[in-house]
């Protein structure tokens, strides 16, 4: 029951990502640059208003996917979900870049049954069985959301950053573990494997508790899906973008909601 609730909270977060008052989902790595193999990374996973504080709900870990530099899957260790955050460790046995990702694919629907408004959430494959006979005004949508972060041992590599051609994905032009204050970085965003022009990107520096303003950086991707950001200072940064279209996999769903979140660490010069 509890797990279901948490999952629901996370799905809701992804679904409404992009709205002005949205909660923010994130995976925060303990550090992103390592000099020796066999090092341990620990990651916090939560949904909150503030970056990066545990004050709302944890991100559930069922959909966690860790990819090693050679493309193989890595199992998280010491995973635990508390009231306010999930946490897990990753042993970095290889040289190169690891991708730590939460991939959320789901479907949700609202409907009326006997005059009463109801809601349903689940996988697309469970949709038909999940909506009771006699339901009216069924309004369904699919969602595909990613929350990612990256960590590198030694030289940054791109093997773990291969895209899948589904939903919003980030292609590094500047490597996500090679970011420095005062320098510009560029990235490309894809939707279903194709450059995504005109996507609105919001970037918020961490440690929001210790300042009065969010200090968001607003950017829009160009015709080639690329955007460039000049990091104003060192620290952790949260990046978010979202999109909607009608490319659903089920005929019953009229719209598809896509979102993408990444957490980057920018180092001092």
């Amino acid at each position: 029951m509890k797990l279901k609730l948490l999952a629901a909270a996370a799905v809701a977060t992804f679904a409404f990502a992009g709205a002005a008052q949205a909660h923010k989902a994130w995976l925060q790595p303990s550090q992103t640059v390592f000099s020796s193999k066999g090092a341990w990374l620990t990651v916090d996973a939560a949904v909150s208003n503030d970056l990066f504080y545990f004050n709302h709900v944890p991100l559930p870990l069922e959909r966690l996917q860790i990819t090693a530099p050679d493309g193989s899957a890595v199992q998280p260790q010491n995973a635990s979900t508390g009231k306010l955050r999930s946490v897990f460790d990753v042993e970095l046995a290889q040289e190169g870049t690891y991708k730590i990702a939460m991939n959320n694919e789901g479907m949700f629907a609202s409907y009326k049954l006997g005059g009463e408004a109801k809601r349903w959430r689940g996988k697309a494959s469970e949709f038909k069985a999940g909506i009771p006979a006699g339901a009216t005004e069924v309004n369904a949508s699919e969602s595909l959301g990613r929350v990612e972060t990256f960590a590198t041992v030694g030289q940054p590599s791109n093997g773990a950053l291969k895209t899948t051609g589904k939903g919003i994905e980030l292609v590094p032009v500047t490597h996500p573990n090679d970011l420095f204050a005062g320098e510009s970085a560029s990235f490309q965003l894809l939707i279903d494997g194709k450059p995504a022009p005109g996507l609105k990107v919001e970037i918020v520096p961490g440690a929001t508790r210790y300042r009065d303003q969010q200090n968001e950086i607003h950017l829009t991707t160009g015709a080639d899906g690329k955007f460039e950001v000049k990091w104003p200072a060192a620290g952790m940064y949260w990046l978010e973008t979202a999109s909607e279209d009608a490319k659903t996999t089920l005929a019953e769903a009229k719209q598809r909601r896509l979102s993408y979140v990444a957490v980057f660490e920018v180092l001092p010069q």
Partner: protein
Amino acid sequence: MKLSSFKVLIPALALPMPAFAADLELNIEIPRINAAEYHRPYVAAWIEKADNTVASNLAVWYDVDMKNGEGTKWLKDMRQWWRRSGRSLSMPVDGVSGATRPVGQHALSFKGNSKPLAGLAPGNYTLVVEAAREVGGREMLSIPFQWPGKAQNLSAQGKTELGKVKVTVKP
């Protein structure tokens, strides 16, 4: 790496030898720091080209003797060195890496015709020294110089993790 040293060797061969008879002396001061928990700093010294790429590594001082190579864990704290060069090297590097040094003045001298200066093409460079101390701070000093050029006595004064750093070019 091999390719680039090959490239610079060609003009070197075309020039009269005396132009390369310069030597370089480096003096790095590790300042005394009053700290409840003091660890000797990790220090890297290298020569950068105008585009910030590394022309040559002169010294990397770290905990070379820790078992299982655990001393390499903090090499990334010398952030710029790590980024420019360290992360693509396999430590330890012969003739470059060595143990951490105590408080005091440390003189290093390099002959122009042998490693790590052999093959350094004539031009403008920057000598960079970066120090990072466990449970402490980090500091980086840059000193531009000409190679081989005229005789040069250059220095920079550190404020926290480094004392005075002196570079002498002796044609």
